[in-house]
């Protein structure tokens, strides 16, 4: 089964109908599931947030594998390696920034009265 590169026997990506259908159906289910959870879910916000995150990550994996063929590569899986590095950097940058900014906001962006209270509690005043 040839594909998008030059010679008939070489492949960069091996495409099949089944993969795309499975990817599409999986994504639809995960999208609908997330939507229904968000609009009709009755658990606490934190629980809902976690589930929505799980659904998003699941759909990410589905589309990465079935639409973007990240697991298929002849020889070293450079695309997978580069993607993993990217994910690591993204996680560090996003969660690092959230941690830092939350910390800064909590400590620095208070009303004057609350600032006084806070400084007193830190034995600065």
């Amino acid at each position, binding site marked *: *089964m*040839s*594909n*998008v*590169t*030059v*010679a008939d026997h*070489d492949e*960069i*990506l091996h*495409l*099949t*109908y089944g*993969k*795309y259908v499975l*990817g*599409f159906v999986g*994504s*639809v289910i995960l*999208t609908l599931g*997330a*939507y229904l959870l*968000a*609009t009709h879910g009755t658990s606490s*916000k934190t629980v*809902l*947030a976690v589930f*929505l*995150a799980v*659904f*998003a990550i699941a*759909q*990410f994996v589905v*589309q*990465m594998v079935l*639409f*973007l063929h990240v697991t298929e590569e002849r020889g070293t899986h*450079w*695309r997978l390696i*580069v*993607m993993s*590095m*990217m994910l690591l*950097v*993204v996680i560090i*940058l*996003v969660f690092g*920034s*959230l941690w830092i*900014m939350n910390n800064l906001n909590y400590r620095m962006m208070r009303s004057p009265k609350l600032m006084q209270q806070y400084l007193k509690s830190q034995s600065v005043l």
Partner: protein
Amino acid sequence: MSETAQMIEQRREHEAAEKTVFGFWVYLMTDCVLFAGLFAVFSVLRHNTYGGPNGHQLFDLPYTLGETFALLTSSFTCGLAMLAAQRRSKRAVLFWLGVTFLLGLTFLGMELNEFHGLIRAGDSWRRSGFLSSFFVLVGTHGLHITFGLLWMAVLGVYTWKKGLTDSIRKRLTLLSLFWHFLDVIWIFIFTIVYLYGSLNV
């Protein structure tokens, strides 16, 4: 057994195509970091509504679901176009590319409509830090979609005029990677901006 000149040439072109696909993949990874930066900004500023409306008040989730399905389906039909390219059917490629284009255009139109509504109501990017980040994050994705549609149109014309040469099929591969990637990013916009936003997380 020595390689004939033709085999050497084929191998060289194959390596060149593989190199280009990989290079484009690396570019897509850098684009992911770009979006990650915008997501970081959105997450930090998501409650900075400055007295203005928040996501829960602004977002119309059924509408957004419709948008999402339009884009998701277009990602699927793009895959069908690639399958058609694999079996060298020029007409099927053009057909599915066309469907993908129309679905993408629908998505874009719905998004522009949403933006227009917000701006008309006075809730533009000037209103608050939250709205600034909303417009820029979602808008950047929309800009990428616009470029993708332009690329799709140009490539469609090339395919129609030149047929499914090796070069054209390589370019279709790149376009499909781009288009699928845009839907992956949308998963996170849908979840973090719209779903989380409507829940006020």
